[in-house]
Protein backbone atom coordinates (compact mmCIF):
# COMPACT_ATOMS: atom_id res chain seq x y z
CA UNK A 1 0.00 0.00 0.00
CA UNK A 2 1.63 3.22 -1.07
CA UNK A 3 0.26 6.68 -0.77
CA UNK A 4 -0.31 8.21 -4.16
CA UNK A 5 -1.34 11.71 -3.37
CA UNK A 6 -1.87 13.51 -0.12
CA UNK A 7 -3.16 16.85 1.01
CA UNK A 8 -4.64 18.76 3.86
CA UNK A 9 -7.65 20.92 4.41
CA UNK A 10 -8.41 23.18 7.38
CA UNK A 11 -11.65 22.44 9.21
CA UNK A 12 -12.39 25.36 11.48
CA UNK A 13 -15.87 26.70 10.69
CA UNK A 14 -19.25 25.63 9.32
CA UNK A 15 -18.13 26.82 5.88
CA UNK A 16 -15.10 24.54 6.11
CA UNK A 17 -17.41 21.58 6.66
CA UNK A 18 -18.98 22.32 3.28
CA UNK A 19 -15.51 22.66 1.70
CA UNK A 20 -14.30 19.42 3.30
CA UNK A 21 -17.36 17.71 1.86
CA UNK A 22 -16.61 19.05 -1.60
CA UNK A 23 -12.98 17.94 -1.40
CA UNK A 24 -14.06 14.48 -0.24
CA UNK A 25 -16.54 14.20 -3.09
CA UNK A 26 -13.99 15.24 -5.69
CA UNK A 27 -11.42 12.75 -4.40
CA UNK A 28 -13.99 9.97 -4.13
CA UNK A 29 -14.88 10.45 -7.79
CA UNK A 30 -11.19 10.36 -8.71
CA UNK A 31 -10.72 7.11 -6.79
CA UNK A 32 -13.45 5.55 -8.88
CA UNK A 33 -15.87 4.99 -6.02
CA UNK A 34 -19.40 4.14 -7.05
CA UNK A 35 -22.15 6.68 -6.46
CA UNK A 36 -23.43 4.97 -3.33
CA UNK A 37 -19.92 4.73 -1.87
CA UNK A 38 -19.22 8.33 -2.81
CA UNK A 39 -22.32 9.43 -0.96
CA UNK A 40 -21.43 7.28 2.05
CA UNK A 41 -17.90 8.66 2.23
CA UNK A 42 -19.01 12.26 1.78
CA UNK A 43 -21.62 11.82 4.50
CA UNK A 44 -19.00 10.28 6.80
CA UNK A 45 -16.64 13.18 6.07
CA UNK A 46 -19.45 15.62 6.80
CA UNK A 47 -20.12 14.01 10.20
CA UNK A 48 -16.48 13.96 11.24
CA UNK A 49 -15.76 17.45 9.95
CA UNK A 50 -18.69 18.80 11.93
CA UNK A 51 -17.52 16.95 15.04
CA UNK A 52 -14.09 18.51 14.54
CA UNK A 53 -15.61 21.99 14.42
CA UNK A 54 -18.24 21.64 17.15
CA UNK A 55 -16.58 19.34 19.69
CA UNK A 56 -12.89 19.66 18.76
CA UNK A 57 -12.89 23.43 18.38
CA UNK A 58 -11.52 23.20 14.85
CA UNK A 59 -8.75 21.14 13.29
CA UNK A 60 -7.64 19.71 9.98
CA UNK A 61 -8.59 17.04 7.50
CA UNK A 62 -5.70 15.15 5.92
CA UNK A 63 -6.48 13.13 2.85
CA UNK A 64 -4.57 10.43 1.07
CA UNK A 65 -5.32 8.48 -2.07
CA UNK A 66 -4.14 4.94 -1.34
CA UNK A 67 -3.59 1.97 -3.60
CA UNK A 68 -3.38 -1.71 -2.81
CA UNK A 69 -2.94 -3.99 -5.77
CA UNK A 70 -5.63 -3.00 -8.20
CA UNK A 71 -7.74 -1.40 -5.50
CA UNK A 72 -7.84 2.29 -4.96
CA UNK A 73 -9.13 3.97 -1.90
CA UNK A 74 -9.41 7.23 -0.04
CA UNK A 75 -8.22 7.70 3.51
CA UNK A 76 -9.28 10.71 5.53
CA UNK A 77 -7.85 11.75 8.87
CA UNK A 78 -9.68 14.30 11.00
CA UNK A 79 -7.57 15.64 13.81
CA UNK A 80 -8.11 18.32 16.37
CA UNK A 81 -6.44 19.50 19.53
CA UNK A 82 -9.66 19.94 21.44
CA UNK A 83 -10.77 18.56 24.80
CA UNK A 84 -10.73 14.96 23.58
CA UNK A 85 -13.19 12.18 24.40
CA UNK A 86 -13.19 10.99 28.00
CA UNK A 87 -15.04 7.72 27.40
CA UNK A 88 -14.47 6.41 23.88
CA UNK A 89 -16.69 3.37 24.47
CA UNK A 90 -19.57 5.57 25.51
CA UNK A 91 -18.99 7.88 22.55
CA UNK A 92 -19.28 4.87 20.25
CA UNK A 93 -22.77 4.07 21.51
CA UNK A 94 -25.75 4.69 19.25
CA UNK A 95 -27.82 7.60 20.44
CA UNK A 96 -25.37 8.98 22.99
CA UNK A 97 -24.27 12.57 22.54
CA UNK A 98 -22.42 15.06 24.68
CA UNK A 99 -23.95 17.89 22.67
CA UNK A 100 -27.45 18.17 21.26
CA UNK A 101 -27.19 16.12 18.08
CA UNK A 102 -28.80 12.78 17.37
CA UNK A 103 -25.84 10.84 18.74
CA UNK A 104 -25.41 8.87 15.55
CA UNK A 105 -22.49 10.69 13.94
CA UNK A 106 -19.58 8.51 15.12
CA UNK A 107 -21.34 5.16 15.10
CA UNK A 108 -23.07 5.93 11.82
CA UNK A 109 -19.76 6.94 10.30
CA UNK A 110 -18.23 3.62 11.35
CA UNK A 111 -20.99 1.81 9.49
CA UNK A 112 -20.54 3.95 6.38
CA UNK A 113 -16.83 3.27 5.81
CA UNK A 114 -14.57 0.22 5.39
CA UNK A 115 -11.98 1.18 7.98
CA UNK A 116 -12.48 3.25 11.07
CA UNK A 117 -10.20 4.09 13.95
CA UNK A 118 -10.57 6.58 16.75
CA UNK A 119 -7.79 7.80 19.00
CA UNK A 120 -8.49 10.31 21.66
CA UNK A 121 -6.97 11.49 24.89
CA UNK A 122 -8.59 14.00 27.22
CA UNK A 123 -6.87 17.34 26.96
CA UNK A 124 -4.76 16.31 23.98
CA UNK A 125 -7.21 15.97 21.13
CA UNK A 126 -8.96 13.53 18.88
CA UNK A 127 -7.93 11.79 15.72
CA UNK A 128 -10.36 9.85 13.57
CA UNK A 129 -9.17 7.90 10.53
CA UNK A 130 -11.53 6.48 7.94
CA UNK A 131 -10.91 4.67 4.69
CA UNK A 132 -13.15 3.63 1.84
CA UNK A 133 -12.10 1.27 -0.96
CA UNK A 134 -13.57 0.98 -4.40
Amino acid at each position, binding site marked *: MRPERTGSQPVRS*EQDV*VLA*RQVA*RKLAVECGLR*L*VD*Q*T*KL*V*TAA*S*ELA*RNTVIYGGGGDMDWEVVEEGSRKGLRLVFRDEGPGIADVKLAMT*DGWTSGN*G*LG*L*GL*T*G*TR*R*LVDEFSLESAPGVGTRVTICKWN
Partner: protein
Amino acid sequence: MSTLSQRTIDAIRSNESQLLASWSVNLEASGASRDTRIGHSEFEGQTREFLRLLVAGSATGDTGSVASNEWSETRAFLEKLSRSRALQGFDSAHTAHFIFSLKRPLFDLLQKEYATDPAELANQLWAISEMLDTLGMHTIRTFQKSREEVIARQQEELLELSTPVVKLWDGVLALPMIGTLDSQRTQVVMESLLQRIVDTGSEIAIIDITGVPTVDTLVAQHLLKTVTAIRLMGADAIISGVRPQIAQTIVHLGLDLQGIVTKANLADALALALKRSGYQVGKAS
Protein backbone atom coordinates in the same frame (compact mmCIF):
# COMPACT_ATOMS: atom_id res chain seq x y z
CA MET B 1 5.50 64.53 9.61
CA SER B 2 5.94 65.95 6.16
CA THR B 3 3.96 68.47 4.24
CA LEU B 4 4.08 69.71 0.71
CA SER B 5 5.72 73.11 0.41
CA GLN B 6 3.77 76.01 -1.06
CA ARG B 7 6.14 75.94 -4.01
CA THR B 8 5.17 72.37 -4.86
CA ILE B 9 1.50 73.13 -4.59
CA ASP B 10 1.86 76.15 -6.82
CA ALA B 11 3.77 74.10 -9.33
CA ILE B 12 1.03 71.50 -9.39
CA ARG B 13 -1.62 74.18 -9.76
CA SER B 14 0.02 75.96 -12.63
CA ASN B 15 0.80 72.76 -14.49
CA GLU B 16 -2.58 71.17 -13.90
CA SER B 17 -3.56 70.59 -17.51
CA GLN B 18 -0.16 69.17 -18.34
CA LEU B 19 -0.30 66.84 -15.36
CA LEU B 20 -3.75 65.68 -16.31
CA ALA B 21 -2.62 65.02 -19.85
CA SER B 22 0.34 62.84 -18.90
CA TRP B 23 -1.69 61.10 -16.20
CA SER B 24 -4.31 60.19 -18.83
CA VAL B 25 -1.52 58.90 -21.06
CA ASN B 26 -0.28 56.72 -18.21
CA LEU B 27 -3.74 55.43 -17.45
CA GLU B 28 -4.39 54.81 -21.11
CA ALA B 29 -1.17 52.85 -21.44
CA SER B 30 -2.45 50.47 -18.79
CA GLY B 31 -5.74 50.21 -20.64
CA ALA B 32 -7.71 51.64 -17.75
CA SER B 33 -9.40 54.50 -19.56
CA ARG B 34 -10.14 52.50 -22.67
CA ASP B 35 -12.48 50.26 -20.76
CA THR B 36 -16.02 50.60 -22.03
CA ARG B 37 -17.47 50.36 -18.55
CA ILE B 38 -16.45 53.94 -17.84
CA GLY B 39 -17.18 56.73 -20.27
CA HIS B 40 -14.33 58.96 -21.43
CA SER B 41 -15.83 62.14 -20.05
CA GLU B 42 -16.57 60.43 -16.74
CA PHE B 43 -12.97 59.33 -16.52
CA GLU B 44 -11.69 62.80 -17.31
CA GLY B 45 -13.96 64.27 -14.68
CA GLN B 46 -12.64 61.82 -12.11
CA THR B 47 -8.99 62.62 -12.79
CA ARG B 48 -9.64 66.37 -12.70
CA GLU B 49 -11.63 66.13 -9.48
CA PHE B 50 -9.01 63.99 -7.76
CA LEU B 51 -6.18 66.36 -8.64
CA ARG B 52 -8.20 69.33 -7.38
CA LEU B 53 -8.92 67.56 -4.09
CA LEU B 54 -5.30 66.52 -3.79
CA VAL B 55 -4.12 70.11 -4.05
CA ALA B 56 -6.80 71.29 -1.64
CA GLY B 57 -5.96 68.59 0.86
CA SER B 58 -2.21 68.92 0.74
CA ALA B 59 -2.44 72.69 1.06
CA THR B 60 -3.81 72.31 4.56
CA GLY B 61 -3.16 68.79 5.75
CA ASP B 62 -0.28 66.53 6.59
CA THR B 63 0.58 64.16 3.74
CA GLY B 64 1.19 61.22 6.06
CA SER B 65 -2.18 61.16 7.78
CA VAL B 66 -5.05 60.95 5.35
CA ALA B 67 -7.27 60.01 8.28
CA SER B 68 -7.29 63.64 9.43
CA ASN B 69 -10.08 66.09 8.79
CA GLU B 70 -8.34 68.00 6.01
CA TRP B 71 -8.53 64.94 3.82
CA SER B 72 -12.14 64.06 4.46
CA GLU B 73 -13.29 65.33 1.07
CA THR B 74 -10.56 63.41 -0.74
CA ARG B 75 -11.40 60.30 1.21
CA ALA B 76 -15.09 60.63 0.40
CA PHE B 77 -14.27 61.00 -3.28
CA LEU B 78 -12.03 57.91 -3.28
CA GLU B 79 -14.59 55.89 -1.36
CA LYS B 80 -17.21 56.78 -3.94
CA LEU B 81 -14.78 55.96 -6.72
CA SER B 82 -13.76 52.56 -5.43
CA ARG B 83 -17.32 51.68 -4.54
CA SER B 84 -18.48 52.38 -8.07
CA ARG B 85 -15.47 50.51 -9.44
CA ALA B 86 -16.30 47.51 -7.27
CA LEU B 87 -19.90 47.54 -8.48
CA GLN B 88 -18.74 47.80 -12.09
CA GLY B 89 -16.72 44.67 -11.53
CA PHE B 90 -13.17 46.00 -11.66
CA ASP B 91 -10.46 44.38 -9.57
CA SER B 92 -8.61 46.13 -6.77
CA ALA B 93 -5.39 46.49 -8.80
CA HIS B 94 -7.25 48.56 -11.37
CA THR B 95 -8.66 50.85 -8.72
CA ALA B 96 -5.31 51.32 -7.00
CA HIS B 97 -3.63 51.94 -10.32
CA PHE B 98 -5.85 54.96 -10.79
CA ILE B 99 -3.90 56.66 -8.01
CA PHE B 100 -0.47 55.14 -8.41
CA SER B 101 -0.25 56.12 -12.08
CA LEU B 102 -0.27 59.76 -10.98
CA LYS B 103 3.15 59.29 -9.39
CA ARG B 104 5.14 59.43 -12.59
CA PRO B 105 3.74 62.77 -13.83
CA LEU B 106 4.08 64.33 -10.39
CA PHE B 107 7.66 63.11 -9.97
CA ASP B 108 8.57 64.47 -13.40
CA LEU B 109 7.08 67.81 -12.49
CA LEU B 110 8.97 67.99 -9.21
CA GLN B 111 12.20 67.01 -10.86
CA LYS B 112 11.87 69.95 -13.20
CA GLU B 113 10.80 72.33 -10.44
CA TYR B 114 13.58 71.42 -8.00
CA ALA B 115 16.35 70.74 -10.51
CA THR B 116 18.75 72.91 -8.55
CA ASP B 117 17.76 71.81 -5.05
CA PRO B 118 18.23 68.05 -4.61
CA ALA B 119 17.68 68.09 -0.84
CA GLU B 120 14.29 69.74 -1.17
CA LEU B 121 13.47 67.51 -4.14
CA ALA B 122 13.98 64.38 -2.04
CA ASN B 123 11.91 65.90 0.71
CA GLN B 124 9.00 66.73 -1.54
CA LEU B 125 9.18 63.44 -3.42
CA TRP B 126 8.91 61.62 -0.11
CA ALA B 127 5.93 63.70 0.91
CA ILE B 128 4.08 63.10 -2.34
CA SER B 129 4.95 59.43 -2.38
CA GLU B 130 3.73 58.98 1.16
CA MET B 131 0.51 60.81 0.39
CA LEU B 132 -0.30 58.84 -2.75
CA ASP B 133 0.58 55.54 -1.06
CA THR B 134 -1.73 56.15 1.87
CA LEU B 135 -4.49 57.31 -0.45
CA GLY B 136 -3.96 54.20 -2.56
CA MET B 137 -4.13 51.98 0.49
CA HIS B 138 -7.29 53.71 1.57
CA THR B 139 -8.81 53.03 -1.84
CA ILE B 140 -7.96 49.35 -1.68
CA ARG B 141 -9.38 49.08 1.81
CA THR B 142 -12.61 50.71 0.73
CA PHE B 143 -12.68 48.57 -2.39
CA GLN B 144 -12.35 45.42 -0.34
CA LYS B 145 -15.01 46.57 2.05
CA SER B 146 -17.50 47.29 -0.69
CA ARG B 147 -16.74 43.90 -2.25
CA GLU B 148 -17.41 42.26 1.08
CA GLU B 149 -20.66 44.17 1.32
CA VAL B 150 -21.64 42.86 -2.11
CA ILE B 151 -20.85 39.29 -1.03
CA ALA B 152 -22.77 39.65 2.22
CA ARG B 153 -25.76 41.01 0.33
CA GLN B 154 -25.63 38.16 -2.16
CA GLN B 155 -25.52 35.65 0.67
CA GLU B 156 -28.62 37.22 2.13
CA GLU B 157 -30.33 37.12 -1.23
CA LEU B 158 -29.34 33.51 -1.71
CA LEU B 159 -30.81 32.66 1.64
CA GLU B 160 -34.09 34.23 0.62
CA LEU B 161 -34.03 32.82 -2.89
CA SER B 162 -33.31 29.29 -1.81
CA THR B 163 -36.47 28.91 0.20
CA PRO B 164 -39.46 29.33 -2.08
CA VAL B 165 -42.63 27.71 -0.82
CA VAL B 166 -44.76 26.67 -3.79
CA LYS B 167 -48.42 25.92 -3.82
CA LEU B 168 -48.92 22.76 -5.87
CA TRP B 169 -52.63 22.30 -5.32
CA ASP B 170 -55.36 23.48 -3.05
CA GLY B 171 -54.11 22.49 0.37
CA VAL B 172 -50.78 21.14 -0.88
CA LEU B 173 -47.54 23.09 -0.41
CA ALA B 174 -44.12 22.10 -1.69
CA LEU B 175 -40.72 23.24 -0.49
CA PRO B 176 -37.89 22.38 -2.86
CA MET B 177 -34.69 22.50 -0.81
CA ILE B 178 -31.42 23.15 -2.61
CA GLY B 179 -27.83 22.99 -1.42
CA THR B 180 -26.44 22.89 2.06
CA LEU B 181 -28.85 22.72 4.95
CA ASP B 182 -27.20 24.46 7.84
CA SER B 183 -28.96 25.60 10.98
CA GLN B 184 -29.48 29.15 9.75
CA ARG B 185 -31.06 28.08 6.48
CA THR B 186 -33.24 25.47 8.09
CA GLN B 187 -34.53 28.15 10.41
CA VAL B 188 -35.45 30.41 7.47
CA VAL B 189 -36.99 27.47 5.60
CA MET B 190 -39.02 26.33 8.57
CA GLU B 191 -40.29 29.81 9.32
CA SER B 192 -41.47 30.53 5.80
CA LEU B 193 -43.03 27.08 5.41
CA LEU B 194 -44.94 27.23 8.69
CA GLN B 195 -46.15 30.72 7.89
CA ARG B 196 -47.38 29.62 4.47
CA ILE B 197 -49.21 26.67 6.03
CA VAL B 198 -51.12 29.13 8.20
CA ASP B 199 -51.72 31.60 5.36
CA THR B 200 -53.05 29.03 2.90
CA GLY B 201 -54.66 26.65 5.35
CA SER B 202 -52.80 23.80 3.72
CA GLU B 203 -53.10 20.29 5.07
CA ILE B 204 -50.10 18.71 3.40
CA ALA B 205 -46.54 20.00 3.00
CA ILE B 206 -44.06 18.25 0.74
CA ILE B 207 -40.36 18.81 1.49
CA ASP B 208 -38.34 17.93 -1.58
CA ILE B 209 -34.67 17.14 -0.90
CA THR B 210 -33.66 16.31 -4.48
CA GLY B 211 -31.32 19.30 -4.43
CA VAL B 212 -29.65 18.42 -1.13
CA PRO B 213 -26.46 16.53 -2.01
CA THR B 214 -25.63 15.17 1.43
CA VAL B 215 -28.02 14.02 4.13
CA ASP B 216 -26.05 13.59 7.33
CA THR B 217 -27.26 13.44 10.91
CA LEU B 218 -27.50 17.22 11.25
CA VAL B 219 -29.61 17.56 8.07
CA ALA B 220 -31.76 14.67 9.27
CA GLN B 221 -32.19 16.33 12.64
CA HIS B 222 -33.28 19.55 10.94
CA LEU B 223 -35.73 17.63 8.76
CA LEU B 224 -37.17 15.79 11.76
CA LYS B 225 -37.66 19.05 13.62
CA THR B 226 -39.36 20.63 10.63
CA VAL B 227 -41.68 17.64 10.22
CA THR B 228 -42.54 17.71 13.92
CA ALA B 229 -43.34 21.41 13.74
CA ILE B 230 -45.55 20.86 10.68
CA ARG B 231 -47.44 18.11 12.52
CA LEU B 232 -47.91 20.29 15.56
CA MET B 233 -49.68 22.72 13.30
CA GLY B 234 -52.10 20.03 12.27
CA ALA B 235 -50.69 19.44 8.81
CA ASP B 236 -49.01 16.39 7.30
CA ALA B 237 -45.50 16.28 5.93
CA ILE B 238 -44.10 14.21 3.08
CA ILE B 239 -40.38 14.11 2.29
CA SER B 240 -39.66 13.51 -1.37
CA GLY B 241 -36.52 13.23 -3.46
CA VAL B 242 -34.91 10.40 -1.49
CA ARG B 243 -32.50 8.99 -4.05
CA PRO B 244 -31.17 5.40 -3.82
CA GLN B 245 -27.72 6.46 -2.58
CA ILE B 246 -29.25 8.74 0.04
CA ALA B 247 -31.57 5.95 1.18
CA GLN B 248 -28.65 3.54 1.65
CA THR B 249 -26.62 6.15 3.48
CA ILE B 250 -29.51 6.88 5.84
CA VAL B 251 -29.85 3.16 6.61
CA HIS B 252 -26.15 2.83 7.45
CA LEU B 253 -26.11 5.99 9.51
CA GLY B 254 -28.86 4.42 11.57
CA LEU B 255 -31.24 7.33 11.19
CA ASP B 256 -34.77 6.55 12.25
CA LEU B 257 -37.20 8.11 9.81
CA GLN B 258 -40.00 5.73 10.70
CA GLY B 259 -43.34 7.45 10.95
CA ILE B 260 -42.33 9.94 8.28
CA VAL B 261 -43.79 9.48 4.85
CA THR B 262 -41.03 9.55 2.23
CA LYS B 263 -41.18 9.25 -1.55
CA ALA B 264 -38.55 8.87 -4.23
CA ASN B 265 -39.67 11.88 -6.22
CA LEU B 266 -41.94 14.90 -6.11
CA ALA B 267 -44.47 13.42 -8.57
CA ASP B 268 -45.14 10.45 -6.29
CA ALA B 269 -45.44 12.77 -3.33
CA LEU B 270 -47.97 14.94 -5.16
CA ALA B 271 -49.96 11.88 -6.22
CA LEU B 272 -50.11 10.74 -2.61
CA ALA B 273 -51.05 14.22 -1.43
CA LEU B 274 -53.89 14.40 -3.97
CA LYS B 275 -55.14 10.96 -3.01
CA ARG B 276 -55.17 11.91 0.65
CA SER B 277 -57.05 15.08 -0.11
CA GLY B 278 -59.68 13.04 -1.91
CA TYR B 279 -58.79 13.97 -5.48
CA GLN B 280 -58.79 11.45 -8.26
CA VAL B 281 -56.53 12.05 -11.21
CA GLY B 282 -57.33 10.30 -14.46
CA LYS B 283 -57.15 10.81 -18.18
CA ALA B 284 -60.07 12.59 -19.77
CA SER B 285 -61.53 10.07 -22.15
